[in-house]
């Protein structure tokens, strides 16, 4: 580890420690609720970018994993202890990601995007059908003693974990392989890289994180039904946030998550019926104006500045 790396690691640890004290602030009710959604989107967008950043595969399956995790908790609460349910949700996410990955990572570009969107929708419809026809109810109750504070700490812990995993992957042979795959898959194959396996590992990692986030969030809803747990909006939000920030850097998505989550709070409060429309508009604007995200913009500006000073 170099000194700069050690310093960054220490800074990150300090930041997380500081954030952990947030629930102890006076009148932190609203602040806490906003922080929960920021933390949630941070984990989702960052883990999404771990896979999609280097490979350029746009996955719209976040909601499928998130909903799966939430439903694992809903189905098991009362009979199985909550921490164990989180682990089970992670395992379920890994199994689903493995199954989806093996069958679809051969698809390229737009086919993969459509498949992942379809997958989330398919699972939602199946769960709806099962509930309506077999259990005779539209949703399920998740009644626990878990407060928003605990959810916040859980998400903060997950965020620390996702950054740690991302950092370790970036330093590894696997991370290097993914960058090569993202550049040129033919060259990757010809230097001896197993691209299918590398992509699958990252897809599973991001699936596990999304499922565990769903499980962590389940108690917050108290009552979950497919349209909440498997909301396709969530998948799009995650993609937008990661892309606004920049999916090619580990901390890029965070730069998108914070303003977008705040903006979203505002939109959802003021224009509750137009959220999807505004989401679509945001998507278009990003693709046109900042394809490499805010971080990409900052980096190229810095690069220009550096060149300018060297010349002058």
């Amino acid at each position, binding site marked *: 580890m170099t000194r700069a790396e050690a310093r960054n690691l220490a800074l990150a640890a300090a930041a997380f420690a500081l954030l952990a004290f947030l629930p102890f602030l006076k009148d932190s009710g609203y602040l806490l609720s906003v922080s929960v959604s920021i933390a949630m989107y941070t984990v989702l967008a960052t883990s999404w970018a771990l896979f999609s950043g280097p490979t350029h595969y746009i996955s719209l399956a976040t909601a499928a994993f998130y909903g799966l995790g939430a439903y694992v908790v809903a189905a098991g609460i009362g009979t199985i202890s909550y921490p164990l349910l989180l682990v089970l949700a992670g395992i379920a996410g890994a199994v689903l990601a493995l199954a989806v990955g093996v069958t679809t990572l051969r698809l390229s570009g737009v086919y993969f995007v459509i498949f992942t969107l379809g997958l989330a929708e398919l699972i939602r419809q199946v769960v709806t059908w099962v509930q309506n026809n077999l259990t005779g109810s539209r949703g399920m109750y998740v009644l626990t003693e878990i407060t928003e504070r605990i959810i916040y700490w859980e998400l903060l812990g997950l965020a620390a974990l996702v950054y740690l995993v991302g950092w370790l992957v970036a330093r590894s*042979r696997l991370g*290097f*392989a993914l*960058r*090569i795959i*993202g*550049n*040129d898959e*033919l*060259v990757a*194959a*010809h*230097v*001896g*890289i*197993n*691209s299918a396996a590398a992509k699958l590992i990252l897809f599973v990692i991001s699936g596990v994180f999304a499922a565990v986030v769903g499980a962590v969030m389940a108690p917050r809803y108290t009552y979950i039904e497919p349209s909440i747990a498997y909301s396709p909006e969530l998948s799009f939000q995650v993609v937008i946030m990661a892309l606004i920030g920049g999916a090619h850097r580990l901390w890029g998505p965070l730069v998108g998550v914070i303003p977008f989550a705040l903006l979203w709070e505002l939109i959802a409060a003021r224009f509750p019926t137009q959220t999807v429309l505004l989401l679509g508009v945001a998507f278009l604007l990003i693709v046109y104006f900042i394809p490499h995200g805010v971080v990409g913009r900052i980096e190229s500006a810095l690069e220009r500045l550096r060149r300018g000073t060297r010349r002058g």
Partner: protein
Amino acid sequence: MLDIQSVAKRFGGLLAVDQLSFAVRENEVLGLIGPNGSGKTTVLNLISGAFKPTAGDIYLDDRLITDRPARHIARAGVGRTFQLVRVLPSLTVLENVMAGAVFGHKRLWGREARKYAERQLERVGMAHAIGMPTAALTYIDEKRVELARALASDPRVLLLDEWLAGLNPTELQTGIALIRSLREEGRTVVLVEHVMDAIRSLCDRCVVMSGGVKIAEGTPAETLADREVIRAYLGDDDA
């Protein structure tokens, strides 16, 4: 070392390679030559595993590699460059070359991989470009980086697809000397090439293709004097 047996490749209605057989001996430089569109690059793609042959078999040593994916063939010690140069644009020059050292059959990592990659860059005359982004490279330098990447995997067999094309006379002499030094250190080289001077001075043997079939095989002097070969290159009237 390499044994190509009755290999054929069909793309839809086009038979790009037809019933082609030849062998590459250990530690020789074999020239694969012929007019444009005769199927030379396709043959390299079949050997490296980029394409699967429609029929026939390819052996590396005594191992059948016909249906192996490209990554297995690369790890078995077959390195290549591409006719249309393929550098990795978002990686630095050094990282481009490290790709070969990290995942090829050497499988180095960290400082070891970096040092090994630096040595390959020095070898192809690109020591000055180690930290540069690839966007700053000229076409010729891109070719050098690509060769360094192939060398970084320490290949036993090196497939070069028109690597000497586009070099000026001085660069050509350096390039020829470089390829010769690869043979001297025990590597086997298959080169697809149009530069006749290079073929004459480098190749131990040549395989001449035309319209997907082999029309001649032998020393450069023999094959380039062959009536069939002259007709393939220049047409009937000149033969």
